C-alpha cells in the first residue's frame, strides 16, 4: 500500500503565499516530506516605510482580508507605543469588543467552511449546504452576526476605518450596543448547536499527537483569557516576555524550503493559535467556553494539532459570552465622545495581539516628523510553518499506511487545522468564457 507514494499539492493559483505539500516515498522509505512556502517575504514592511504614523493602519489592514481588524489593532498599538500614547479605558474596551468580533467571524468561517466539509466527507462547503443544511445555516447565521458586529465597531466588516492611534474615530451608540448584546444572547443556542454537530463527527479527526511548544499572550493582571493584552509565554514554562522583545521569542530564520521566514524558541519549532492560547490560558475561559472544551475532552496540555479546531469553537463561545458582559460594563460606565490629539515624535514601538490564527507582532520606528523609517511584521502563519513541517515528519510515517489519497487528505487536513493565512493579498478571478 505505502511502498510508493508521490504527493504534490501545489497551491499555484496565487502570486503570493503558496503552500505546497510534497511527499516522495519509495519502497516504503520516505525520501522527501516537505511543507514548502514560496512566499514573497516582507513586502508590506517596505510599503509602510516613508508613510505617516496615521497612514500605517489603513495600509496594513489590507495585508489580510480575514484578519484585517487584528492587523489594524497590532499596528495601532505599535504606533501608540512608539509615540507614547495612552488610550482611555473606553477605547480599550471598544477595541477588545471589536477584536472579539473578528475571532467569532474567523473561527466560525474556519470551522464551518473549511473543517466541517472534511469531517462530513465533502470537498468543500458548497456540497455541504445540501448535505447538512441546518448546520450550515446556523454557521452562516453566526458568521453574519459576527460581520454585523465588526461593521458596528470597526466601521465595516473588513479593513476597519474607526481605529486611529490614540483612540477611535467613531463609537457606537448605547442603543446599538444594547441591540448587539441582545443579538449575541440569541446566538448562544446556535453556537452550542454548531458545537454539537461538529462533536457528532469529531471522531474523524486523527488522534495524532506530537509534543509541542505553544506560544501565546498571557495576561495576569487581572487574569484574563487574553487576545489583546499581556506578555508572551510558552507552554514550556518560559515568559512572560515583554512584547517589545518579541524578536527574541520568534527567532526568525531562513529555511531552504521556504521563502517565508520560520520561527523557533526553545524547541525546533513552536505553534501559535487557538490551541496555544487554550494550553496557556484555558482555565480562564468563560463557563460556556469551558463547557465546549469539556464536550470534546479538550484539556490543557493537548498536543494534537487537529484539536486547534475544537479550541476555536471554545473560543467562539467564549468571546460571545464575555462580550455580553463587556457591553454591560460599557453601558454602565456610559459612552463618551473622546477627542484624540497626537503630536508626532521620533520613536520605536511594538504592538502585539492574538489573531484568530495566532500571535501577531508589529514593530515600527518613526522619525521626528512621524514618518515610518523601519517596520517589522511577524504573522502567525509564518510562526507555524516550522511546526507544520515537524508535524509532517511524524505524521507521514504514522499514516502512510493509508495510501496516497488517504495520506494526502490527512496532510491537507493537518495544514487546514492550523487555519493558515496563506496570503489573501491577491484574490483575482481567473476565468474562461463558456458562452
Amino acid at each position, binding site marked *: 500500500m505505502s511502498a510508493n507514494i508521490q504527493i504534490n*499539492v*501545489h*497551491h*499555484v*493559483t*496565487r*502570486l*503570493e*503565499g503558496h*503552500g505546497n505539500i510534497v511527499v516522495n516515498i519509495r519502497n516504503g522509505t520516505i525520501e522527501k516530506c516537505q511543507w514548502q512556502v514560496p512566499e514573497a517575504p516582507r*513586502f*508590506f514592511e*517596505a*510599503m509602510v516605510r516613508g508613510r505617516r504614523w496615521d497612514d500605517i493602519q489603513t*495600509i496594513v489592514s*489590507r495585508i*489580510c*482580508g*480575514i484578519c*484585517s481588524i487584528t492587523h489594524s489593532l497590532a499596528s495601532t498599538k505599535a504606533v501608540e507605543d512608539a509615540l507614547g500614547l495612552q488610550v482611555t479605558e473606553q477605547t480599550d474596551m471598544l477595541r477588545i469588543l471589536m477584536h472579539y468580533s473578528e475571532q467569532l*467571524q474567523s473561527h466560525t*468561517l*474556519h470551522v464551518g*467552511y*473549511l473543517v466541517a*466539509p472534511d469531517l462530513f466527507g465533502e*470537498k*468543500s*462547503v*458548497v456540497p455541504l*449546504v445540501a448535505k447538512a443544511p441546518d448546520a450550515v*445555516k446556523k454557521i*452562516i447565521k453566526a*458568521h*453574519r452576526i459576527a*460581520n*454585523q458586529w465588526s461593521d458596528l465597531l470597526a466601521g465595516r*466588516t*473588513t*479593513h476597519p476605518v474607526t481605529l486611529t492611534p490614540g483612540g477611535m474615530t467613531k463609537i457606537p451608540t448605547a442603543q446599538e450596543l444594547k441591540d448587539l448584546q441582545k443579538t449575541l444572547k440569541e446566538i448562544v443556542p446556535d453556537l452550542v448547536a454548531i458545537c454539537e454537530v461538529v462533536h457528532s463527527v469529531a471522531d474523524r479527526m486523527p488522534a495524532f499527537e506530537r509534543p509541542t511548544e505553544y506560544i501565546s499572550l498571557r495576561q495576569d493582571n487581572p487574569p484574563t483569557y487574553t487576545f489583546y493584552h499581556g506578555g508572551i509565554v510558552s507552554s514550556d514554562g518560559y515568559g512572560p516576555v515583554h512584547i517589545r522583545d518579541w524578536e527574541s521569542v520568534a527567532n526568525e530564520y531562513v529555511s531552504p524550503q521556504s521563502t517565508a521566514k520560520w520561527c523557533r524558541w526553545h524547541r525546533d519549532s513552536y505553534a501559535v493559535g487557538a490551541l496555544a492560547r487554550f494550553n496557556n490560558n484555558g482555565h480562564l475561559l468563560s463557563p460556556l467556553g469551558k463547557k465546549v472544551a469539556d464536550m470534546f475532552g479538550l484539556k490543557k496540555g493537548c498536543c494534537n494539532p487537529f484539536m486547534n479546531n475544537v479550541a476555536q469553537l471554545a473560543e467562539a463561545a467564549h468571546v460571545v459570552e464575555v462580550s455580553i458582559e463587556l457591553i454591560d460594563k460599557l453601558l454602565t460606565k456610559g459612552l463618551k465622545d473622546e477627542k484624540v490629539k497626537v503630536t508626532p515624535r521620533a520613536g520605536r514601538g511594538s504592538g502585539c495581539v492574538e489573531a484568530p490564527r495566532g500571535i501577531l507582532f508589529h514593530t515600527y520606528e518613526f522619525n521626528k516628523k512621524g514618518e515610518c523609517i523601519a517596520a517589522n511584521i511577524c504573522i502567525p502563519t509564518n510562526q507555524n510553518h516550522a511546526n507544520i513541517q515537524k508535524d509532517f515528519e511524524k505524521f507521514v510515517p504514522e499514516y502512510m499506511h493509508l495510501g496516497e489519497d488517504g495520506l494526502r487528505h490527512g496532510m*491537507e487536513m493537518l*495544514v*487546514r487545522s492550523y*487555519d*493558515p*493565512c*496563506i*496570503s*489573501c*493579498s*491577491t*484574490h*483575482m*478571478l*481567473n*476565468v*474562461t*468564457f*463558456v*458562452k
Partner: protein
Amino acid sequence: MAKETIVIGLGNPLMADEGIGVVLIERLEILAREGKIPNADRIRFYDGGTGGMNLLHVLAGRRKAVLIDCARMGTEPGTIRRFTPDQVQTIKQLAHLSLHEVDILKVLDISRQLGECPEEVVFFGIEPLEIRQRMSLSPLLHAQIPHYLQTLLKELSLSSNLDS
C-alpha cells in the same frame, strides 16, 4: 432594509492592478456623493477588499449585484468585459488549505444554494497588466479609469431605468 442594488469593488490596492475594483468603487462613491449617479440612494457601493466569504452576507437580500474585479480572461491588458456568472467557468484551482483562498464564483454558488442570491448578478472583469507589490495601478489601467467609470455608469443607469 437592504438597498436593492449593491456594487462591489474587489481587490487589494497594495497589489497594483489587483486593486482596480477598490479604486473604481472609491470613484463611484465620489460620483454618487456629487449626485452624478441616478437613483444612487438605491445603490450600496461596497469596498469588498479581499474579504472573500464575507461577501455572502452583503449579497443577501439584494435584487441586483454588480461585481467589479481584476480578472484574467485571456484578453488584452486593460480590457473591461461585462459578463454574467453563467458565461464563465473558473479555472482557478483551490487547494482548500486556507480560508484565504477565495473564488467569488463559489461564494455565488453558496448564495444561490441558500436562496439569497440576487436575481441579477453582473461582473465587470478588468484584465490586469501588472500584479505586483505597489500601491498604484499600472499607467495603462490608470489611464482607462474614465472609460471604466463610463461603462459602469451605463450599467447603473440601465438598472435605474429598469427600477423606475
